[in-house]
């Protein structure tokens, strides 16, 4: 840039001095943690696609059974084991039940078990892990030993035992998964709290006289929320998978109630004559698990505190 191009007049050299307002002003738009995370997720193609797929599945699970003219347990002796058609989009099963409706009714069960089990795991794990990490001492030691024991027993065996004792059903499935699942979240959040509790902002709260409970709730947990959400997203697919497995071996949900595991089990029996009865539920289990994992990866990148505020 050549300064001679611009008109330079003596008037321009009038003294104006400092500009207090401008000095302290912040020109960047204010942006919250979650908003920035959302912006990042949107640029991550795989995670965004996963989010769309999952939203679609959830909406279909809610509305598809209501909008269909078939009920999920409505049998039709004249239309058994049909393939895809305009009447029955995903065909019918050995009793003539409409597979489209059964898939979305099953999705309600599978998805809600996944959500609820993972959520309860997270809450129990975070609270216990949070206190254990912050307070330390004996409580911490005993809790860690209990977790070691839980880790020592193959979780599948515990799941099967619990299902045998409590009998099939959605509630017992959730109980079975919570018994084995909280330990992982607990250990994870304990590690995070350990890292945070020596941070200066936590010390500052202690110096101000904040109570231990309030420090955990206000200073620590909000700072591990991002990681917890990521963790939760990653925990959902394994809960869905486990539900499918337990239902598949006949210990989970029992027919005529449907879940994706139940549908896959029914499909296996007829694999040779009507393979779509296996492929369709298998497709939904696979895509859901894959989508959750992709979304989890995306969230981890988007909400990673180490990537933020460093520039």
């Amino acid at each position, binding site marked *: 840039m050549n300064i001679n191009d611009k008109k330079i007049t003596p008037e321009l050299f009038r003294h104006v001095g400092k500009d207090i307002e401008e000095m302290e002003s912040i020109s960047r738009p204010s942006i919250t943690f979650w908003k920035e995370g959302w912006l990042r997720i949107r640029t991550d193609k795989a995670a965004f696609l996963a989010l769309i797929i999952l939203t679609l599945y959830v909406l279909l699970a809610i509305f598809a059974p209501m909008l269909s003219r078939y009920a999920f347990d409505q049998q039709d002796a004249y239309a058994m084991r049909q393939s895809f058609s305009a009447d029955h989009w995903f065909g019918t099963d050995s009793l003539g039940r409409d597979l489209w409706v059964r898939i979305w009714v099953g999705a309600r069960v599978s998805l809600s078990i996944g959500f609820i089990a993972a959520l309860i795991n997270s809450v129990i794990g975070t609270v216990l892990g949070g206190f254990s990490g912050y307070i330390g001492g004996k409580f911490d030691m005993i809790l860690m030993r209990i977790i070691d024991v839980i880790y020592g027993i193959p979780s599948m065996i515990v799941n099967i035992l619990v299902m045998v004792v409590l009998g099939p059903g959605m509630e017992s499935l959730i109980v079975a998964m919570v018994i084995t699942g909280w330990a992982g979240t607990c250990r994870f959040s304990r590690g995070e709290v350990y890292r945070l509790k020596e941070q200066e902002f936590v010390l*500052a709260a202690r*110096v101000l006289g904040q109570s231990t409970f309030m420090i955990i709730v206000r200073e620590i947990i909000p700072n591990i929320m991002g990681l917890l959400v990521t963790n939760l997203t990653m925990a959902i697919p394994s809960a869905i998978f486990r539900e499918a497995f337990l239902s598949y071996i006949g210990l989970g949900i029992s027919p005529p109630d449907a879940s994706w595991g139940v549908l896959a089990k029914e499909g296996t029996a007829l694999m040779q004559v009507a393979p779509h009865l296996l492929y369709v539920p298998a497709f939904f289990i696979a895509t859901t698990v894959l989508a959750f994992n992709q979304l989890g990866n995306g969230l981890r990148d988007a909400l990673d505190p180490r990537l*933020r*505020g460093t520039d």
Partner: protein
Amino acid sequence: MRNNVDQKVMLELDDVSQYFQLSRHKILKAVDHVSFKIHEGETVGLVGESGCGKTTTGRSILKLYTPNTGNIYFKGKDVFSFNSEEEKRYRKEAQMIFQNPHASLNPRMTVREIVGTGMKIHDLVKPKEMDAKVEALLRQVGLNKDHMSRFPHEFSGGQKQRIGIARALSVDPDFIVCDEPISALDVSIQAQVLNMLKDLQDTRGLTYLFIAHDLSVVKYISDRIIVMYLGTIVEEATAEELYRNPQHPYTKVLLSSIPVADPKQARKKERLVVKGEVTSPINPPDSCRFAGRCPNAEKRCFEEMPSLCDVSPEHRVACFMIEQYFRP
């Protein structure tokens, strides 16, 4: 210069030690039998290199650690035998400003919440008046209303540090531990914060313990200076005296090592450069901690620990080379 003799003692450390057991045979002696007093209204500078125990001392005072030996008295009372009411009052009267402005503010809270928390804990204002009070505090540290609903990461280092100062002031304390409050800041910003701390001291009658590794900053802000080396106090004097008449070899080295912003002088100046590095505070020897690097160390320095002795009123040094001259 203030006359400290007839002033009331605000804080007293009596033989305080803070050890950390790292493993069965490794003890980190962060602070080792340290005693000093801080009078009302004065600024005491605590200076030393990393690992000398200055930050640990500051944190022990605010009960973030429990000392292994010794007592800490605040306004004449032992801080470790407070009842819950006294404890709460101590949390209001003694505050801290932290070293790292990027780590000392909760990243999920707005400035309003950060500055308001203390007032809420101690019921200092009605909820309705909170915003006005927070705004007034922000004004005192040169920020304004528009900053209240922003998050810490939107601010520069100097602004963050000023928010930290506002937080410490929010409960209207008498005594503040300033733990290296400017070492993470840019040069031009350091003066802003230093001036602000000085002005606040004048208007609110605050007492400071000012911890830093930079002797020129400590000299500028303090009435008295305590020099620490590997967990022990090696010298203590008024700021002027320490600068004009340093006695301990370590203090001399420290003074000479500071790079001066004057090229001609830098070209001429002969520096005392000490050999070797600060040794580890893990399992330190029970002798003079500086002996290994000291240019005039004798046999005795490697065998015994020198105690602090007076070379003049208000000037104490822990060095055998001094002590022999001033023994009665």
